[in-house]
């Protein structure tokens, strides 16, 4: 690319359209036959918002079947921006048909890789292997792409198509010999065979394979023998892995037990073999239980035996729960009494008590909650000397007892009770600052009562970073209020996505080059998961909202453009959104599953669709487009699923927005007066107080402040004028300014304290909370 070529593109990207236009027209005059410049011209037209003209010119260019890779890439981009991915791919398909050169097909393939487009990768890889028949590497790559497509959970292909692709992939490799091939090649071939249910072939190949089977191949081999019911072979292989190779793997134990039963080895022989395993491990002891289950023998005695050996390990409760034995609550209570009667204080006894409390909570139908809570505190206090002895970073199990208490107590969801539990959790952290389970729950409680700064503080204390944002950022992002500090936090989180995009792009390409097929399927899926991530969308939409409220126009433009790239999907209601959030880790402690969680909203796909439609509606002025968008906005707002995704007050603010959009983003109609009336009737502080209370009130006020900004922005641009609406908006803004609403929450929590926590510590926490509440108050923004 020449210097001028680069400056044309950068002028377009920076919005310097007349400069771009003059540079480009010189080029077009000089090189009227160069398709590249015509493609750039289309790009300029799209960027200018002249979509129809861009489309007709792009189509005209498409008809000419350009083959210059730069032109193709540019035209591809234009079609993508116009929301026509099919046409984008078609230009390559046509070019490749007409001028089938290896370089061109490779370009097409690399482009598909960079877009994580599994379908096109397969097409391009197939074209390339056809072009160079007999090339082992290209055939392998094409076969993998068939496999990847067949397995893909995101491509929405039918089962029939999946079978077709698997067969096609297998066919491509038929002529190759794999006995001495690389493990990666064998992996692809065996996975295709597996998809085609050809287990016999898998077993045959892997039993005669000359190299060492890696873990992937070993798992495929075991699975194939199992499916083929080759019990004796399976028995011998599993036994060798467990006893000779010392591959201590529970799934392999299960194969061994199943094979043992099916080869008519009797129960005693099977148990004898298990007991011979050295060293005796948790896996081997659980295998004994598994064997009893499979041979349909009593399990309770074995479970008790397991309890005897593992009650002082934290996995005990989970392991035993899995086998659902007859509850042995008397034995549990007896052990607890013995430990409590003794003066010995050690980690093993503590963990046993923690496990026992979990069993008691699960098994005791007549559990006396208050007594249970008191017992947990008593254990906590008795074992406190261990806290002083332990290595700072080592996990401390007694905290879990108090977490169980907190969950029980959270049945009362009032602000003062949440604060009480916060005090308790802060107390635990004071003694043991490294416990992430405590901190995670604490941050969740802070977020639920609008203490953003404290939620964020704890989020950062947990050192949540990089990829962890993807699954955990929802803990702070969803409920955050728009302060300057929070905006900065969100931008920092967003940076992760920008760098991950680039890293994944490079790595997927490199993995293809290095033929690391057993990782590539996950690479592409992960890339797609991040690209269409729900957390990422919610973050982006929060960023836009924050920038708008805080008047950060530069960032507002930047982030809004990203939403605009999805215009077509949003207006057709076909936006792909994938959810990778972790809601489990926060609650995985104590006796599970944990109930009585806090009633926080859980954003979903419909919310993203609604919010994207909102943002596009704010920006769009073309009535044909806005009509479509209003339809989608309305549809999302009325969908059944949206109710759990919005806070109560948001249902109301979105209705206000709907009316506003109908008023300003549609041609004036008879309806206009009714729309104005609705808005005027609702834009009052009194009304706000009716729709929101507690922590929701502060958030609702932010929503209204944003509404006012949106009103100002779109009413300025549009011809419709209404004096009474203008007045109503000004009035409500003034009312909000004069109000003292958040002080209510502050007084509610003034004297909160918690049992078992010193008074001074409680007061300190309450003061901290008050300060944080003030920091996240809507008042900061007016």
């Amino acid at each position, binding site marked *: 690319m020449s210097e001028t070529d680069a400056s044309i593109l950068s002028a377009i990207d920076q919005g310097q359209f007349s400069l771009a236009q003059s540079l480009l027209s010189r080029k077009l005059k000089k090189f009227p036959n160069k398709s590249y410049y015509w493609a750039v011209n289309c790009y300029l037209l799209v960027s200018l918002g002249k979509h129809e003209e861009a489309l007709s010119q792009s189509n005209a260019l498409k008809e000419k079947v350009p083959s210059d890779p730069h032109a193709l890439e540019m035209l591809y981009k234009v079609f993508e921006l116009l929301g026509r991915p099919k046409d984008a791919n078609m230009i390559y398909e046509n070019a490749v048909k007409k001028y089938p050169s290896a370089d061109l097909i490779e370009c097409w393939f690399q482009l598909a890789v960079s877009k994580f487009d599994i379908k096109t990768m397969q097409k391009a890889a197939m074209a390339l292997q056809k072009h160079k028949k007999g090339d082992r590497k290209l055939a392998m790559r094409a076969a993998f792409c068939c496999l990847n497509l067949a397995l893909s959970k995101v491509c929405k292909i039918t089962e029939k198509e999946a079978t077709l692709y698997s067969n096609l992939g297998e066919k491509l490799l038929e002529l190759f010999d794999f006995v001495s091939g690389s493990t990666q090649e064998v992996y692809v071939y065996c996975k295709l065979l597996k998809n085609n249910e050809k287990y016999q072939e898998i077993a045959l190949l892997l039993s005669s394979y000359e190299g060492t089977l890696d873990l992937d191949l070993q798992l495929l081999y075991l699975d194939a023998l199992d499916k083929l019911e080759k019990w004796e072979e399976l028995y011998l292989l599993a036994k060798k892995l467990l006893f000779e190779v010392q591959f201590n793997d*529970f799934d392999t134990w299960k194969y061994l037990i199943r094979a043992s039963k099916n080869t008519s080895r009797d129960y005693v022989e099977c148990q004898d073999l298990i007991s011979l395993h050295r060293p005796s491990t948790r896996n081997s002891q659980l295998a004994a239980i598994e064997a009893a289950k499979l041979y349909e023998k009593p399990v309770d005695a074995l479970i008790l035996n397991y309890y005897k050996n593992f009650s002082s390990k934290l*996995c005990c409760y989970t392991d035993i*729960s899995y086998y659902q034995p007859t509850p042995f609550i008397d034995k549990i209570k007896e052990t607890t009494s013995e430990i409590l009667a003794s003066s010995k204080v050690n980690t093993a006894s503590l963990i046993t008590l923690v496990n026992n409390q979990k069993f008691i909570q699960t098994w005791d139908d007549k559990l006396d909650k208050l007594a249970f809570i008191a017992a947990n505190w008593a254990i906590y206090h008795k074992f406190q000397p261990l806290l002083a002895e332990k*290595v700072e*970073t080592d996990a401390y199990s007694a905290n879990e007892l108090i977490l169980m208490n907190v969950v029980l107590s959270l049945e009362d969801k009032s602000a003062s009770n949440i604060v009480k539990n916060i005090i308790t959790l802060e107390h635990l952290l004071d003694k043991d600052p490294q416990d992430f389970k405590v901190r995670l729950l604490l941050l969740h409680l802070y977020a639920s009562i609008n203490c953003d700064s404290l939620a964020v503080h704890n989020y950062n204390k947990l050192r949540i*970073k990089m990829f*962890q944002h993807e699954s955990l950022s929802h803990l702070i992002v969803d409920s955050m209020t728009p302060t300057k500090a929070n905006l900065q936090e969100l931008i920092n989180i967003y940076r992760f996505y920008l760098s991950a995009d680039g890293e994944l792009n490079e790595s997927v390409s490199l993995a293809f080059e290095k033929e690391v097929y057993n*990782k590539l399927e996950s690479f592409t899926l992960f890339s797609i998961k991040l690209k269409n991530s729900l957390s990422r969308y919610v973050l982006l939409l929060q960023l836009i909202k924050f920038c708008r409220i805080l008047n950060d126009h530069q960032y507002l433009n930047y982030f809004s453009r990203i939403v605009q790239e999805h215009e077509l999907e949003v207006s057709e209601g076909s936006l792909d959104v994938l959810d*990778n959030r972790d809601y489990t880790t926060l609650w995985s402690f104590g006796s*599970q599953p944990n109930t009585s969680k806090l009633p926080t909203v859980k954003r979903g796909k419909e919310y993203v669709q609604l919010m994207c439609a909102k943002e596009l509606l704010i920006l769009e002025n073309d009535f044909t487009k806005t009509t479509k968008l209003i339809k989608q906005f309305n549809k999302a707002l009325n969908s059944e699923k949206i109710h759990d995704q919005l806070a109560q007050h948001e249902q109301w603010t979105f209705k206000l927005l709907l009316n506003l959009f109908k008023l300003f983003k549609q041609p004036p109609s008879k309806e206009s007066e009714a729309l104005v009336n609705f808005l005027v009737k609702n834009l009052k502080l009194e009304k706000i107080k009716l729709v929101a209370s507690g922590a929701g009130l502060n958030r609702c006020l932010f929503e209204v402040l944003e509404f006012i900004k949106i009103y100002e922005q779109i009413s300025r641009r549009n011809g419709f004028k209404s004096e009474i609406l203008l007045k109503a908006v000004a009035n409500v803004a003034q009312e909000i300014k004069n109000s003292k609403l958040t002080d209510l929450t502050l007084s509610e929590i003034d004297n909160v304290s918690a049992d078992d926590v010193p008074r001074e510590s409680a007061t300190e926490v309450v003061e901290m909370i008050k300060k944080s509440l003030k920091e996240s108050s809507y008042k900061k923004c007016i």
Partner: protein
Amino acid sequence: MTSIKPFQIEDLLDVNPVNLDPLTESYNVQFYLEYLIQWPTLFFKSTEISDFANVEKREISGYMMGKAEGQLAKKEWHTHITAVSVNSYYRRLGLASHLCSELERLTKGPPYETLFVDLFVKVTNTLAQQLYEKLGYSVYRRVVGYYGRTLPTDSSKIDDKIDAFDMRKLLPRDVNRETVRADGKNHNVLPQDVTF
């Protein structure tokens, strides 16, 4: 009930219970991708099955991230433990030991056949040191300022908070035991001396 499976990049979305641990580092995605591409067999995880209220779940209980590097001619061709970490609910069961032994088994023979396994551990992380000692590792040298923010220049300025021990375990290929030493704690080096 632990099973061993290959690590996949998507697992990053499920490792929170392991990575939220204060001593377990989370890196940028590129770092994990590089390991998966370069040493796909040396990155594996342990998984557990649980069942509460009849909802069966598989969760990640730990992982091993390893690599092989260094020149054989310089007697530096070795296996390196980059990260090993176990969810606190599954500790003291021998899981980390098993993950280490697996890595050792995978690299002591072909195709890797390295001379030794090594790792860096914080001088203050005595728990992990006990684990490695039990497995036969010993300190080879102290890397001064390995975990510090700035690159140190003086190897005599020791500081437990930011120094690391480079611990090693001999593998059968080093028949003459040339890559380990008994008095490792007395050898101080700088971070720039331990790159391969």
